[in-house]
């Protein structure tokens, strides 16, 4: 992508981003309580297939609101969001988009306590297309991917917090999403478990080309991503590539950038394999 393309009309005309663009916001603004609170102001971001992006910022910076927009949990007051090249405003129901294209990982895991690890992973599959008889097998295989093949039949309470988050990650992968959205995924974990979860994200990204968007307020953890977007007061403050190289952002975004170059979003990753289950193992980090 060139500077021209970005400055022309605010990213890609006609919603047709580069072929690698997976998620894009164009001048997204979100206003609450009758225009009194501007949670997001004119935010334009382009996230490419296979990127590992962390969105950082202090409380109230707008990162959670941005997560809602990127995760199709909410619609912007103005602007447009494109998922896989399609303008989201034209989609009647966001539920199906979320079910089929986005995997969510939350800070508090939110596993259902009466369901085993394998059954928890199957919960999103009710909205998927996989035949019911294949679901247990796929859930078990996903648990193997996150290193929990020996915990398939355990209830959440029988698992450590780190293991629970791994189950939640397996659940997020249940319907073969095109991107993984993680909201403070290590907020409730000790440092060892947090390391294990980040290692898992890194492996998913590295070995499967999974697009990962990580929301965190922790500098230490956020720095592990390839690209860091910082939010402040509802604006995109900076967009940098790790380690610490400031990236330019759209001129109309109102935020400064370090070197005026393009946003450097072309960190191309190989397309995610069709198969949902690449044969790699992740060591347990209880």
């Amino acid at each position, binding site marked *: 992508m060139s500077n021209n393309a970005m400055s022309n009309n605010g990213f890609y005309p006609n919603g047709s981003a580069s072929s690698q663009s997976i998620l894009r916001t164009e001048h997204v603004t979100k206003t609450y309580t009758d225009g009194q609170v501007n949670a997001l102001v004119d935010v334009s971001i382009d996230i490419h297939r296979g990127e590992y992006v962390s969105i950082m910022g202090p409380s109230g910076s707008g990162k959670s609101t941005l997560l*809602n927009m990127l*995760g199709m*949990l*909410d619609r912007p007051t103005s602007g447009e969001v494109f998922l896989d090249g399609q303008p989201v405003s034209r989609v009647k*129901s966001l*539920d*199906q*988009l*979320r*079910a*089929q294209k*986005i*995997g*969510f990982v*939350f800070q508090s895991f*939110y596993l*259902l*306590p*009466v*369901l085993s690890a394998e*059954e928890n992973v*199957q*919960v*999103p599959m*009710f*909205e998927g297309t996989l035949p*019911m008889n294949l*679901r*247990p097998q796929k859930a078990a295989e996903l648990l193997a991917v996150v290193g929990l093949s020996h915990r398939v039949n355990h209830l959440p309470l029988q698992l450590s917090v780190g293991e629970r988050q791994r189950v939640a990650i397996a*659940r*997020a992968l249940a*319907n073969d999403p095109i991107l993984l959205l993680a909201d403070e995924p290590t907020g409730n974990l000790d440092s060892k478990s947090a390391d294990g979860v980040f290692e898992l994200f890194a492996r998913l990204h590295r070995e499967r080309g999974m697009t990962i968007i990580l929301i965190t307020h922790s500098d230490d953890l956020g720095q592990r991503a390839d690209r860091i977007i910082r939010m402040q007061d509802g604006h995109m403050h900076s967009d940098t590539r790790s380690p610490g190289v400031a990236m330019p952002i759209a001129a109309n975004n109102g935020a400064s950038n370090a070197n005026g170059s393009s946003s450097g979003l072309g960190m191309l990753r190989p397309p995610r394999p069709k198969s949902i289950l690449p044969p790699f193992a992740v060591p347990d980090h209880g």
Partner: protein
Amino acid sequence: MRFSTFIFRNVLRRRIRSTLTMTGMAVAVSAVVALVGLADGFRQSMLKLYTDRGVSLIVTQAGAVSPLSTILPEKVAQDISKLDGVEATCAGLVDFQMFEEFGSDPVGLQGWPLGNYMFSELKIVGGENLSEKHLGNKCCVVGNNLANTKSVKIGQSITVAEQKFTVVGIFESSQDIESNMVVMLLEDCQKVLGKKGSITGCTVNVKDKTPEGVAAMRELIETKVAENNKCKLRAKPPGEFVQQSNQIRAASAMAWMTSAVALFIGGIGVLNTMFMSVFERTREIGILRAIGWCPSRVMKMILLESVLLSIGGGVIGTAGGLLLIKVLSRLPVVNGVVQAAITPDIVMKGFAIAIVVGLVGAAYPAYRGSQLLPTEALRHE
């Protein structure tokens, strides 16, 4: 994992609350099953009194409020018996009377003409049946149920309207209503009740028992016989007669009204449980919505959880209701009047009502749950 498994596990999550909700539903359903069952039992008991004896029509005075309050000339029965196509008739005088020996409970009293086929239908289990030799001697036979509960012995005198009657036999009847009655000859009964030459009604057995045959006889009685006797007559098949009986209608109405109160309370219990469930699980619902569950699936989840609780309550309630019928029908106050009627129809009604109450009670919570916005639900503490 099936969706039903998911629902089942969710219900098991809060065992105490689920148990209490099911108990509330069970009480409501058992009240329905028991009360409606008793009302049905009462109706069936009355109906069988006629159907077991091949009665095709019951003739009473037209416009009477209650079958017991009708008065017809005895000649009506005689005229009907002479009609072509009539197999048998029985002129009956029926009332409820206080017998000195039986305390304050009114007891059914029936009078039939000497030699009527109805006497041969009574199965005498002690003493003898009423016959010609008892005519004018103030004798009676007593149903076995009444004999047992009031310790009536053969040869004992019982007093009604200050007249003493000798119990000469005890009969058994498959119908509780009849087994709790005193039967005497029509002539004696008319004297006791002060209704000489009168009857309450008349049962008619027709030869042609097809609906057309019965309808033809019905018309004949209501027109020709009525005109001959200068009175207005109503001839009804047993089912219609029993269904339109004031007592049956009152019993049925009372049963349903009482049941409605129980069901309302049961429904409120379900509503409360499901509302609490939705409120407590707001964030969980937010997660389910976030991972792609559509509102209709959330609604289905809540409704099915409620239905599962209701079915559980329905099973317990139906079993409890059937037990209650057995117990209630043996209570002295209803013994002999009401017979337990345990039919698939009642069981089906119990289940259907449980499911409907469960669905109605959970409808609004389910709607509320399904309308939760994922962003707001996820923020819920």
